[in-house]
């Protein structure tokens, strides 16, 4: 935490897992989002809203806190709120083999 205190238990921002795009993904930027297809996936998945920006910042391994910080700054939104919204999106992207986690 910025003030040096410990994060509360279960705080997603405290999770040190780092997320990054899978190298095995085809993408197409569309006017209303980004369409992603894992080479071993079934169907492309459209990530709308800040999807293209999220995909952009996933170009290198980042923690949820880092991703939330970058997107929060971009959209002038609170990082805690962004992180809460982002966590399930990342899990869905991981389940679709579009992003991976690194140690």
């Amino acid at each position, binding site marked *: 935490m910025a003030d040096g205190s410990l994060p509360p238990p279960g705080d997603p921002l405290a999770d040190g897992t780092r997320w990054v795009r899978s*190298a*095995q993904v085809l993408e197409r*930027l569309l*006017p209303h989002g980004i*369409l992603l297809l894992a*080479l071993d996936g079934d169907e*492309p998945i459209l990530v709308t809203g800040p999807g293209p920006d999220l995909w952009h910042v996933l170009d290198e391994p980042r923690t949820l806190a880092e991703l939330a910080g970058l997107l929060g700054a971009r959209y002038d939104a609170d990082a805690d709120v962004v992180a809460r919204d982002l966590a399930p999106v990342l899990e869905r992207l991981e389940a679709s083999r579009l992003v991976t986690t690194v140690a």
Partner: protein
Amino acid sequence: MTQPPGFAHARVIAAWGLPGVQLRAPGDPLEPGEWRVLERVVADQRLEGLLGAAVVDGGWPATDEQAEAALDLTHRAATLWLLLERELLAVTAELEQLGAPFRVLKGPAVAHLDYPDPSWRGFGDLDVLVPGRALEHLRDRWLAAGAVRAYPEPRSGFDRRFTKSVSLRRTTGWDVDLHRSLAPGPFGLALPVDELFDTAEHFELCDRTLPALDRVGRFLHACFHASLGQAGWRLPAVRDVAQLAPRDPLEQVETLRRAQRWDAVAVVAAAVSLAEEVLGWSAPTTFVARLRAAPISARTRRWLPLYRSTTRTSAALSLAGVEAVSGLRDKLAYAGSLVLRNDDGGVAPAARRARRALALARRPPRAT
């Protein structure tokens, strides 16, 4: 120019984003009936990405409902592009394994290399250029695995030596055209196909780097496709001509030098003029001046009208092809392959004559 309903609007969409275009979008959203027609034409012509971009950018007026429909069209089309690109990765991996040189043609290559945004250029199949021997090898391998070819080979060896391309539906369900040349008929047969592998430009797809023709080659191919295509011209091919038209003086000179070597100046002139007419676009004036000064061979003046969709016949193109093939033996082999079909039960008199001509051609020249 006779146009089906909705086509005038589709031309505006096809020209969207090009600098200096004179075609203008309507001032207000189309009536629902007109919009539905436009949707059909846009889907048929594979202009979904341009429509979506134009609507979002405000370049095409749309109601909320129409804007949503445009984005939905783009989404559905883009789904197809990504699935095709995945197939392209599989096909090119196989070619790399074989050690065969190849060049990715048309859709995916120009989408990634020549458009400001790849989603502006749609495509519905894959086209890959390979040398004749590799084409034959890959064709047999895919056919053995269960692929289906669209048209039978006229005569054994025709695909390797003379065909423009072989269309195959792979067992994955996707259509792939394996090209030996860039155009049907005499223009394709006159092309020095080995030269197509001398240069390349690469594009990234996923974690792979794939070779395409260089920019000059892509422009000339776009001209072939727009001017000589089988079913008349299509808007993305015409847009490619405008998108790739050389602006840099050095590139203009190299383009025309290569067009002369390929005996394709007439094709370039026809394609540029078509793009100007259809898209309301103006080609770079320096390029037009150079193009007008470039010599057009007499034979290509004769060939070009044979491709017009109203009078086009495969027989006329094949016959003109005899003139385009260089070397007596190759001419005879080509002519022979046109009259001798693999599925011939009996032998027609024309076939007997062609066989005799082939036999004569194989004799060593008599000493005089």
